[in-house]
């Protein structure tokens, strides 16, 4: 199994035994049985995401690329939401009237459900080529054509012969995986096969190593959610120790993507986002990588930078830089200590991001009382115990959930944290309970590195100063759950999916332990 040889991208539950349903203690969670966890599911569920949405989110960032969504019209209905972020990114770069990304739906109807949609898809690709004149086309396969058996690969092969631009395919049917992060793999798969492997010019040749004395060039795998301030901070840090950076493949042109095969090192800022692509660059181009930490919080940033420095022979430069930056960053946040110190924080986001952000808040003197992570895989294993140890053995609750705000609301009502750090879409549930919210990413803000440490502290202190909006909101809205629900264990509906008899892992967390913590 690898990005190069996989015809269809495997689901994360198969590739990395990811799990989406666990509720319980953080202590020892990383050591629990992965296959058993992976089988757990819910008897009540609320809408999650499907893998198409992150796939689309990433691919829409590619300039001059037209996205063809092969399916019913609704699968293409959220494109403009993704486009908002892309437009704002262009504005950050000073491009005021940038062209909007174009996405189209093949508008699969009852006719195609009965007779097949391949012919229509093929016609649509030619029409898009002719009318929109993109520099590349990527087709996304959705549930409906997949179930009726449309041969996407066949259509793509045929079209590739006739068109002079890269054409790539993404199989991202929503029903094929419960872990939407699979969609990142799907997008990387399309990018690699479209712009590198099956490109008209063929794949670039492997580079013959770095010439002695030359500055190393490092790939930074970006995310659609990392804004320009963060890219600038990463660039500043790496430039300072003597490294040049190449940022992609999001927002990158075909040329930049192909150049990524020529780097000396690949650096991930989010391992769970990037591992499939990073592994490809290593397997096929021998590019070593750093795929362990996320440069969020001081210790994580330092460790991340040292890993990079060790791989590029720049350890001394890094140590010197780290010493100076660490002292400066800690000094910069002293002014916020009286507001932040001792507060209880609950975090909710993709697993790795939630955990490393937990570290950041611990460094600012806060105590973690809960983490809601969208899925769990091996990248997070060591972090849970590490975070518990860092706060003197104080346990916290972990909910692995593809959103599921009914569990989140239940937990927050019991725990009553002082501060909620959440992903877009989660924040409202804390807001409706009157809890101050720091959104976990916003492309206009610094979040990564030393500057990010300071800016997050500054923002949290500001938000804590006046939570009136959320407090008033909580006093004047109604939540949709019955009163009895709040008396229940939030993990009541998590069950073992494989065998009715086997017991559920977790669900044993004693919320009383969090009562009265300061």
């Amino acid at each position, binding site marked *: 199994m690898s990005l190069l040889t996989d015809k269809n991208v495997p689901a994360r539950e198969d590739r990395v035994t990811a799990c989406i349903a666990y509720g319980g203690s953080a202590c020892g969670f990383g050591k629990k049985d992965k296959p058993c966890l992976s089988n757990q599911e819910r*008897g*009540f*569920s*609320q*809408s*999650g995401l*499907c893998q*198409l*949405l992150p796939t689309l989110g990433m691919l829409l960032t590619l300039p001059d690329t037209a996205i063809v969504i092969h*399916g*019913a*019209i*609704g*699968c293409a*209905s*959220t*494109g*403009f*939401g993704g486009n*908002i972020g892309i437009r704002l990114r262009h504005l950050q770069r000073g491009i005021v009237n940038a*062209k*909007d990304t*174009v*996405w*189209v*739906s*093949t*508008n*699969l*109807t*009852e006719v195609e*459900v009965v007779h097949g949609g391949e012919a*229509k898809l093929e*016609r*649509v690709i030619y*029409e*898009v080529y002719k*009318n*929109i004149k993109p520099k590349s086309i990527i087709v996304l396969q959705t*549930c*409906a054509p997949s*179930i*009726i058996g449309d041969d996407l690969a066949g259509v793509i092969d045929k079209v590739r012969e006739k068109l002079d631009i890269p054409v790539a395919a993404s199989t991202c049917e*929503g*029903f*094929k*995986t*419960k872990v*939407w992060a699979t969609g990142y793999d799907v997008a990387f798969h399309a990018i690699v096969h479209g712009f590198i492997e099956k490109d008209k010019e063929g794949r670039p040749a492997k580079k013959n190593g770095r010439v002695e004395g030359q500055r190393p060039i490092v790939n930074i795998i970006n995310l659609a959610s990392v804004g320009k301030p963060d890219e600038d901070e990463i660039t500043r840090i790496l430039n300072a120790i003597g490294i040049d950076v190449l940022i992609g493949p999001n927002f990158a042109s075909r040329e930049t993507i192909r150049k990524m095969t020529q780097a000396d090192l690949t650096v991930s800022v989010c391992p769970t986002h990037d591992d499939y692509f990073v592994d490809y660059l290593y397997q096929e181009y021998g590019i070593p990588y750093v795929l362990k930490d996320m440069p969020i919080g001081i210790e994580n940033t330092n460790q991340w930078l040292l890993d990079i420095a060790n791989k590029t022979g720049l350890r001394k430069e890094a140590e010197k830089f780290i010493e100076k930056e660490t002292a400066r960053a800690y000094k910069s946040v002293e002014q916020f200590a009286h507001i932040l110190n001792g507060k209880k924080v609950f975090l909710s986001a993709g697993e790795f991001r939630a955990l490393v952000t937990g570290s950041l808040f611990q460094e600012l003197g806060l105590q973690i009382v809960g983490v809601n992570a969208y899925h769990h895989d091996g990248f997070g294993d060591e972090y849970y115990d590490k975070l518990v140890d860092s706060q003197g053995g104080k346990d916290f609750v972990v909910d692995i959930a593809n*959103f599921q*705000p009914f569990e989140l609301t239940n937990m927050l009502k019991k725990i009553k944290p002082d501060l909620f750090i959440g992903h877009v*879409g989660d924040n*409202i*549930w804390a807001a*409706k309970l009157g809890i101050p919210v720091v959104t976990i990413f916003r492309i206009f803000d610094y979040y990564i590195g030393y500057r990010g440490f300071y800016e997050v502290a500054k923002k949290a202190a500001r938000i804590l100063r006046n939570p009136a909006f959320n407090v008033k909101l909580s006093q004047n809205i*109604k939540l*949709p*759950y*019955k009163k009895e*629900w709040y008396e229940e264990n939030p993990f009541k509906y998590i069950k073992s999916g494989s065998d009715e008899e086997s017991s559920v892992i977790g669900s044993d967390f004693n919320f009383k332990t969090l009562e009265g913590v300061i």
Partner: protein
Amino acid sequence: MSEYIERPRYQCALGGALVTITALDRFIPIVHSAPGCASSAEGAASTGSGYWGSTYCNGRATPSSNTLEKEIIFGGEERLKEQIETTLSIIDGDLFAVITGCMTDIIGDDVRAVVNDFKKAGKPIIVAETGGFKGNSSKGYDFILEAIFTQYTEKGLEKNPRLVNIFGLIPSQDVFWRGNLIELKRLLNELGLQVNTFFTPSDIVEDLKTASKASLNIVFSDIHGIVAAKVFEETHGTPFITVPLPIGPTATKEFLEEVGEKFEICSKKVQELIQKENAWYYSFVQSIGDIYNDIDLQRHAIIVGDSNYSFSLTRFVEEELGWIPAYVAVTDMLDNNEKEKVKSRFDLIPEDLRPKIIFETNTSEIVSRVLADLKNTDSVYGDLPITPAFVLGSTLDRTLAVDVNAGFLSVTFPVTNRVVTDQGYAGYKGGLRLTTDIFSVLLGNR
């Protein structure tokens, strides 16, 4: 005309049904589909209608069976049954609706049988098969209304000669549905009628149950809700009329007169209301008279929107603002009959001011068709014949406004560059609001 739909300005049938349900508090959807369907539809609606956001039980809180490959292979009925049971035990609602997605419709889950068992047990639950491939939001709006009227609305209730139901404004697809419904209700109340609007934050589920008491259904659309209104008539014997969404005093006057006649309301009463509202409208509009004339606020108009707004906005800018309608793009997916219906509305615009009408779903093609047409009209000085121009459209049409150097206000779905709460553009209050919003854009740099 391309076969594809570029940057769709609507959701699928499932999405249309879903937002119609969640627009009414305590009306709870149970989506039987893959994990992303509800999020995708809700994401579009909550962002695209001026940040409607999360209300009572929508967005990420939407109950959904999140069907996966296992259910596709072995059938999803058991999973649906479990999801209904658990939803009923956790969620505090007055009415529940199971709606389905592509995959569950294609594999043929017998959702009606599953739901019927709950109905027999006395649970307030209905079902609609809303697979996305069956059409767009407009279809979904019809599907869910049809399900409500045939499965929930009580039959055989005595008619209330003064009660009307309002349909045709799809929640979120009409970004201003709440404000519009509130204003339409206010005006009809003034005529002495009682009104069910169903989908504003102040409405209750009970109104859907007793909607059959109404003596008339008013559908503010030639396209949306027509099928549902027919079903209503067949099921409950209430006739319907279709009228365009009235924006501003002239259109609203006509609308009030038509309804007045239907209900045989004393014409003196109707005229008194019209005079009162008109006087109120002009007591404010007169203030704009100076600036309108002093700096010349007349514009050529380009209107981009669905079949409801494309006509109503054109009529408003022509009739009330004294503008010159240049182009109108109707972005709904329409068959030829429907196109004729929409087109014939424009006969009301005086011939010399009638705009060119483009039926086009695709944003890029709207731009290229307008630009291509403009190329045919060379000027010695190289200016565009439609300068000065103004675009009323969706946020997606901002680039068109840039291309023709026009002012721009987002009015039609999706609207992502401003917040919409209780604003509406219907009626007298709406007309004044629209006037205010448009001229505020034009004065934005002062």
